[in-house]
């Protein structure tokens, strides 16, 4: 391996890395540890351990409903964002498209516009159009935010696709639709999987847009926010730990999958 900064003490580089890791992981570890604490308040040290908070969370109807609601929104967001994202990526990579870079920049804008600005503008927008806040508005907001990630992933994959794969399919008797379904789409699978996981994770994680666009039903982040407002308790730690484990598992699995199927 090449060594940059060869005159720089190696231990200093290593030390700064480990400092970063501790800074990243210690708060998470603390949060997880306290979720096992047998007391009604969040503090150290932990003298008695328990699983009762988990039992309580898993029986908490509010929590389970919020989970289901968040998952529903995430699935719908992923569905719409994937269709729109693939469509835009195909448009951008098509031959003879004018102003390709403008289309790309516009499609990617939602990824860099601050969430708060995005949320407020969407809120005003739906007010103007008389669309009620609630599920539809949330999905709309999440989709706008998720599309750029799908576009970028699919475009990257499309650029690595040999030109003549589609030609070969056409040559063997496929019309352009069949060629897309049987050759282009399967080729895009790793990018689609990555993009979809990204959509799910950003949607489940989103607080700001949901806050401005939501109705009476609470999503998971909204519920946790409300509970924190009512005072910290190890129950919140247990909830957060569950969310952390599930999302980390999905993320890491997706990363592993896209890496393996890279051809």
């Amino acid at each position: 391996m090449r060594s940059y900064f060869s005159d720089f003490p190696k231990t200093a580089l290593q030390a700064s890395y480990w400092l970063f890791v501790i800074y990243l992981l210690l708060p998470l570890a603390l949060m997880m540890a306290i979720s096992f604490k047998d007391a009604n308040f969040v503090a150290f040290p932990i003298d008695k351990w328990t699983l009762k908070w988990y039992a309580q969370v898993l029986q908490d109807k509010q929590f389970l409903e919020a989970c289901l609601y968040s998952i529903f929104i995430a699935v719908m967001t992923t569905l719409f964002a994937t269709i729109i994202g693939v469509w835009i990526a195909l448009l951008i990579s098509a031959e003879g498209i004018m102003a390709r870079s403008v289309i790309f920049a516009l499609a990617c804008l939602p990824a860099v516009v601050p969430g708060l600005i995005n949320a407020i503008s969407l809120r005003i927008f739906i007010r103007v159009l008389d669309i009620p806040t609630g599920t539809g508005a949330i999905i709309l907001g999440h989709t706008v935010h998720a599309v750029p990630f799908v576009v970028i992933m699919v475009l990257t994959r499309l650029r690595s696709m040999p030109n003549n794969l589609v030609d070969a399919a056409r040559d063997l008797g496929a019309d352009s639709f069949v060629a897309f379904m049987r050759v282009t789409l399967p080729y895009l699978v790793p990018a689609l999987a990555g993009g979809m996981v990204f959509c799910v994770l950003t949607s489940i994680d989103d607080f700001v847009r949901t806050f401005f666009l939501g109705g009476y039903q609470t999503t998971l982040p909204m519920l946790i926010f409300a509970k924190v407002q009512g005072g910290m308790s190890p129950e919140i730690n247990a909830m957060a730990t569950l969310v952390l484990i599930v999302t980390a598992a999905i993320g890491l699995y997706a990363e592993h999958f896209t890496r393996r199927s890279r051809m």
Partner: protein
Amino acid sequence: MQPVVHFRNVNKSYGSSLAVDNLDLAIEPGQFVTLLGPSGCGKSTTLRMLGGFETPTSGEIFLDGQEISKLPPNKRNVNIVFQDYALFPHLNVRRNVAFGLELKGMASDAIHKRTMELLSLVKLTDFAERMPGQLSGGQRQRVALMRALAPNPNVLLLDEPLSALDAKLRQQMQIELKSIQKTTGKTFIFVTHDQEEALTMSDVVVVMNAGRIEQMGDPHTLYAKPRSRFVANFIGETNFIEGRLKAIDGGLAAIEWNGSVVHANLNGQSPSVGNTVAAALRPEAISVLSQKPSNTIAVSGRITQSIFKGDHTSLTISLNNGQSVVAQLDPVALSAVTGDDVWLTWRENDAVVLAD
């Protein structure tokens, strides 16, 4: 016999540049035809127009008597073997070969039977379930070939399919391709810039340059009787004899060259006496003598370089007029060494007059 493929006055231009210039080409069924030429000569464009990936700017293309120049690729009974194979990376070998058959709506057991038959033809039955990424270059080549043959096309098009293989494998594939063409009896149209490849496999070679056909014929004729300087240069090594045409006598041209009058076959040309003409002379047609022969015309020169190439020795001989001539000789029989003064002779018909 009706030609299986017929280009009639086909032009293809990109903006102001003409890629194919008034092409007229008829191909007989069952032949191995090679389009040979340097890059940019229009050979690939010609192939892509036949495959349906380019539309002619003007002119007509007939396949089995039917005009097809406006049909999309999926409506033409021709298949292409692409330069980098274009195997579908997400399908295994068997599914790749079956692709065209599935689209034809063939029954699945019939598809399986034909696929395995084709794979056994190239000894790849054991690799049927492998993914293309797990195959060697030569194996991918064979899969691509069988995938293109599977739908039973009238004509198989091959777009420089051997260029990615190493020299040894390429030679082996040339022989294999030729034998598959013979077994299947199909018309193969093969595009290459490699003259050796063209000579090895083809029944007919079409030499193209700047969008036009320079010459078309069987490999032996092209080699022995090139019509133009371009063809003579592109196929094999050639010496040029250039000089004033002194006389025409019984199918032979008498050309003033290097202080002598030498003879060359007229090669179907009719140059005017007194004009400058050029003739081509292959290096292996030249004999090198240490003494001036009494019974035949000879040209004198001095050996300036001698390179041993195994099966032959390549001599560079400098003539009195300053021109260098290359001769190929049998190393065993050769006694002359660098610096020797020698006499060159050849059979009159081995030198051929060129059109330009």
